[in-house]
């Protein structure tokens, strides 16, 4: 029989447009093939610096996200009780009018009564600025829930951080240690990097993770650590290196604050602070002259010893107390073995392997470079040991110190921005910490006026806190107060609880964007739903008004009074700015845009456009011309191009001025066209002499100044010892004018330690080990991104429901078999779900996939969808506050430094259930008014085969 003729050369579509993916936080470049106005195929953009042509499962399912039946179609106004899901559709005029009326009243009385919080927002350079313009400090995105421990620890220690601001030197490293990483950021670059690293075949890859899935499955060694104990493992590795003298002294003296002298005067107001000249320069002990000298890479700074200065002060190098802590038996491998569950011999071997890779396999690149002190180096000598860490470390109440300890380990090995080690992604490194202070002090908030600075920033000491004279928090979430002084991403997880309790004060309007707070983005989910619907005796809602913007029918929609429907990512302008969360890699600085590749078929508007329009209606000065007209009549696309943060510095770094300027330059009206022409991104590859040692690389730093990345080209000394922490501790010890209230004093003194330390996570330390013996954690599945994936016809087939995974031995001891139903009980609540027994999990830990569970009737799914009947959340078990202790103030269930939500601290017990079926099981929500029915059969693509679109 003759073979049939096949049509092998049919063009994919009639148009190809580039834009940027939004299916997770990677922000890969994509090429969207369109046929007759319908999206036919989305592929990775080969030229794009982030993904170089690859695309993950999420990105490849973008069509189904774009066409999701969960899309909202019109603005909605609540007509039934809050939480009932009863809405009427209204016009945009009416919606914008309502929002303007509500917000205008607040702005002209007390702008703090607006709490504006965004979720997985990728336009924080706009949303944070908008909050400032409005005049409220009550703004943050979901970083406080996600990974602020990681970001803050990095920015306060290295001037960069894992994921966003740095990455392993995938192509040179000889040893990669990864902590607590599932399908976390950076999704595609990690997969690309691991593939390249293992194919190169010269490196060992160690994955430290309680669960052996995903990346851990391909690791050379899986270390199944007990959750929350990573700091003890890192501390013991440092212990071993210090005891053996295997640390990089020259690197420490030259590039870090290890040699900076601190006052050693216990009880004095300056104890533990750096000794500085009148000009503010830190001093080191010059070993050559035997005198104190301003720190510079050319001075041979002593790292040990105790000294007396000419004025009689007693001082020591800051490295000394740091190493003394880790040299102590408190961090011995034996002690760490008790805490982590990893045997001491393994810890010793890992330390030996780190030292071997760093010092015995030093990597030399024959590339001359010049440091900031003018010293010319003939080569780049690297310590090819790299680390990456993410939420498994971050989401614990000891996460900030653990992450800082990991950075100290990197620096002790000399493995920061050297060949083969962890490297910065420009525009990082930045000064440590970045020179941005949070705004919101009493004189910075005036009715009808913008704030003079950004809501979020990096406090350097008690003087930067946002507190009243008596210590009461100024922000609704209590960020930057004594509750969480260095809460650099805010504390979104506390907004609703605090607003409900009127603690520290009641608010008027809660304005949320893309934040599913009535479900998987909140701790204490059931309590949150109650708080959102709570009424005063007179029937007024305790939280009077809720505005919610989202593209999809998430669980949160039902709790809003006014719903502003957003577009999908293929229908909007956006900008991935260096001012925000860049897409650079270590060799390339890059930013990008999204352009609308198809037009919306619904009465929806891009939230960023809405925000700019709303700002103009409110008369916000930055969005309104003196004559009252709109400053950006072309809305967000116009703002992206013409808005300047500082003269010549805008949201996009490429194609400025006449189109040839980079970094700084006047606005260029043709900028977006130039981006589109270039594939919707701009990228500049660094010359090879600028690719390492960037904290002290003169050429790089001069260029970074010219580009507007940093204000000056001085060396950035890595801050192993953290003076800002010591300043808070000194306040707690009674020094200084700004004093913590008495009930905060002991906690500040204990945790604001300038040297990293490990302590047990708070929930674990508080609840009974007998009553709650197990750890419970979640991971994000590779094919899904939180809640969004479940509405996706393709992705939900991969994870339609989730199970509680439990170690086979542990499960057997509890009389459990796979498929059994169990009760999972925490100090806060209980759920009933189904278990699967497995081998590759820490025996004391249970885990599940995050955010598969859905409330019935949401996300365009049928009420009997498995997501609702067998999918569950651990969130119900997690309290937003620490367990009640008699007579004690109840802190947030969070890191004491940064306020990072400690949702991996959960402790539970597992009980075999006699009953079956999911519990709790909330009543189904109605589909929002205006929703289109979900198709019963999906034949997407048949039209293309037939030769044309629908």
């Amino acid at each position, binding site marked *: *029989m003759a*073979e049939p003729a*096949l*049509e*092998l*050369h*049919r063009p994919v579509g009639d148009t190809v447009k580039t834009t940027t993916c939004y299916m997770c936080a990677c922000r890969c470049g994509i090429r969207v093939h369109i046929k007759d106005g319908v999206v036919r195929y989305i*592929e990775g953009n080969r030229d794009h610096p982030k993904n170089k042509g*690859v*695309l*993950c*499962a999420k*990105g*490849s399912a973008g069509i189904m996200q774009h066409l999701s039946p969960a899309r909202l179609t019109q603005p909605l106004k609540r007509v039934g009780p809050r939480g009932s899901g009863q809405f009427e559709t209204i016009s945009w005029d009416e919606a914008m009018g309502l929002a303007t009326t509500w917000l205008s009243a607040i702005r002209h009385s007390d702008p703090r009564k607006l709490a504006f919080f965004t979720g997985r927002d990728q336009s924080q350079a706009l949303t944070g600025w908008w909050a400032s313009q409005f005049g409220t400090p009550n703004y943050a995105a979901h970083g406080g829930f996600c990974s602020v421990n990681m970001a803050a620890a990095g920015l306060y220690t290295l001037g960069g951080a894992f994921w966003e601001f740095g990455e392993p030197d995938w192509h040179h490293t000889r*040893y990669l240690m990864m902590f607590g990483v599932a399908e976390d950021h950076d999704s*595609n670059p990690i997969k*690309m990097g691991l*593939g390249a690293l*293992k194919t190169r075949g010269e490196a*060992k890859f160690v994955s430290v993770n309680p669960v*052996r899935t995903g990346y851990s*499955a*391909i690791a*050379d060694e899986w270390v199944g650590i007990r959750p929350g104990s990573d700091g003890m493992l890192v501390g013991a590795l440092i212990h*071993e290196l*210090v005891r053996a003298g295997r*640390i990089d*002294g*020259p690197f*420490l003296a030259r590039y870090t604050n290890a040699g900076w002298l601190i006052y050693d005067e216990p009880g004095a107001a300056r104890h533990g602070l750096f000794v500085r000249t009148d000009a503010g320069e830190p001093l080191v002990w010059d070993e050559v002259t035997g005198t104190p000298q301003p720190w510079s890479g050319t001075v041979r700074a*002593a790292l*040990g*010893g*105790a000294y007396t200065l000419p004025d009689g002060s007693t001082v020591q190098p800051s490295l000394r107390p740091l*190493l*003394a802590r880790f*040299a102590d038996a408190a961090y011995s491998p034996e002690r760490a073995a008790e805490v982590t569950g990893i045997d001491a*011999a393994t810890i*010793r*071997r890992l330390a030996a392997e780190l030292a071997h*890779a760093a010092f015995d396999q030093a990597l030399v690149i024959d590339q001359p470079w010049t440091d900031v002190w003018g010293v010319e180096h003939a080569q780049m000598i690297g310590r090819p040991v790299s680390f990456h860490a993410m939420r498994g470390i971050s989401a614990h109440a000891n996460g900030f110190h653990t992450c800082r300890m990991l950075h100290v380990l990197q620096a002790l090995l000399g493995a920061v921005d050297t060949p083969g080690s962890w490297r910065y992604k420009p525009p990082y490194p930045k000064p440590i910490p970045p020179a941005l202070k949070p705004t919101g002090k009493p004189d910075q908030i005036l009715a009808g006026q913008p704030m003079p600075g950004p809501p979020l920033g990096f406090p350097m000491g008690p003087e930067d806190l946002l507190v009243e004279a008596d210590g009461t928090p100024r922000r609704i979430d209590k960020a930057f107060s004594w509750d969480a002084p260095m809460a650099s991403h805010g504390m979104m997880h506390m907004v609703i609880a605090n607003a409900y309790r009127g603690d520290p004060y009641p608010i008027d309007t809660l304005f949320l964007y893309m934040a599913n707070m009535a479900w998987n983005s909140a701790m204490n989910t059931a309590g949150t739903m109650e708080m959102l619907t709570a009424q005063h005796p007179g029937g007024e809602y305790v939280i009077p008004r809720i505005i919610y913007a989202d593209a999809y029918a998430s669980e949160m929609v039902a709790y809003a009074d006014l719903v502003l429907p957003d577009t999908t990512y293929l229908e909007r302008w956006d900008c991935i700015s260096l001012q925000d969360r860049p897409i650079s890699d270590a060799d390339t600085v890059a930013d990008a845009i999204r352009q609308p590749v198809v037009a919306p078929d619904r009465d929806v508007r891009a939230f960023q456009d809405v925000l700019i329009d709303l700002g103009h209606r409110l008369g916000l000065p930055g969005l309104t011309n003196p004559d009252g007209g709109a400053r950006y009549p072309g809305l967000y696309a116009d703002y992206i191009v013409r808005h300047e943060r500082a003269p010549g510095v805008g949201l996009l770094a490429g194609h400025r001025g006449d189109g040839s300027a980079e970094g700084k330059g006047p606005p260029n009206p043709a900028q977006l066209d130039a981006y589109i022409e270039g594939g919707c991104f701009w990228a500049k590859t660094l010359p090879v002499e600028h690719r390492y040692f960037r904290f002290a690389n003169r050429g790089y730093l001069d260029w970074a100044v010219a580009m507007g990345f940093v204000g000056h080209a001085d060396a950035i000394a890595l801050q192993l010892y953290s003076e800002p922490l010591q300043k808070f501790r000194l306040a707690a010890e009674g020094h200084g004018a700004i004093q913590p209230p008495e009930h905060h004093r002991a906690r500040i003194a204990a945790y604001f330690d300038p040297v990293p330390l490990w302590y047990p996570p708070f929930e674990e330390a508080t609840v009974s080990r007998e009553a709650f013996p197990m750890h419970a954690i979640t991971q994000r599945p*590779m*094919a899904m991104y939180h809640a969004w994936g479940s509405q996706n*016809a*393709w992705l939900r*087939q991969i994870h339609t429901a989730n199970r509680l995974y439990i170690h*086979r031995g542990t499960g057997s001891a509890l009389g459990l078999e796979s498929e059994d139903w169990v009760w999972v009980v925490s100090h806060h609540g209980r759920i009933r779900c189904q278990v699967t027994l497995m*081998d590759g999990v820490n025996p004391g830990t249970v885990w599940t996939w995050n955010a598969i569970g859905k409330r019935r009737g949401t996300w365009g*799914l049928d009420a009997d*969808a498995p997501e609702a009947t067998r999918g569950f959340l651990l969130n119900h078990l997690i309290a937003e506050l620490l367990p009640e202790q008699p007579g004690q103030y109840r802190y947030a269930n969070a890191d004491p430094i940064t306020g990072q939500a400690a949702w991996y601290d959960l402790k539970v017990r597992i009980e075999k259930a006699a009953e079956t079926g999911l519990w709790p099981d909330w009543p189904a929500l109605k589909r929002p008014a205006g929703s289109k029915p979900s*198709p*019963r*059969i*999906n*034949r*997407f*693509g*048949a039209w*293309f*085969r037939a030769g044309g679109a629908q």
Partner: protein
Amino acid sequence: MTSLPTTTTKRLGLVIDLDICVGCHACAVNCKEWNTGGIAAPLTDLDPYGAEPLGVWFNRIHSFEVGEGASGRTVHFPKSCLHCETPDCVTVCPTGASYKRAEDGIVLVQEDLCIGCKLCSWACPYGAREYDYDAGVMKKCTLCVDKIYNESLEEVDRVPACVATCPASARHFGDLGNPDSDVSRLVAERGGYDLMPELGYRPTNKYLPPRPKQTKAGCTGAPAALSPAPDEAPAGGVFGWLDRLLSKL
């Protein structure tokens, strides 16, 4: 019964590296995305937002554990049609709908001849055939035949969607009939193997086994533990010891 070509000019197929596959499903979803609008479109999903979603997928990822304790492993195993040299799925076809191309060995289904009898899915020991209940015909991996030859695409893009999209570069495409091709060399170097060779279907696709893991200290050349720094004058406690150590760095 349908006959097979006696020889094929090429043996196009995939080489899948199990050493670096992290089980991310990128290949499976991108495959579905390409093919649902391609020559075998659509890859229908029944009940896509309901209680029992059931879709057509040409490529599926199976994640499972083998062994226990120290020898335990988690395996991510992508599986699609292996385009066998002597596939029963073709020879059992009563209508000639299933066929193997003489040019490149790709096994395809000619839908207008398919009566939906499913004999081929019973014959395939790998479970690689996918029945479209809506269309009433059998579908399967086409090796992106409408992409790999497509002259409307740049040459570099003429590879199967699963290969182009794989973030870890765990998938390779080429002519396994040519011993000098990149994929054949890779198979030779890494000990690539056939899936269930004992069945005798001579699959074209190959799997590369995981590389030996560097789990022992010796593999990286490091000792089992570091030796504490010698200290001849143990005085001054921790700080005395530390100061002597630091003065030598």
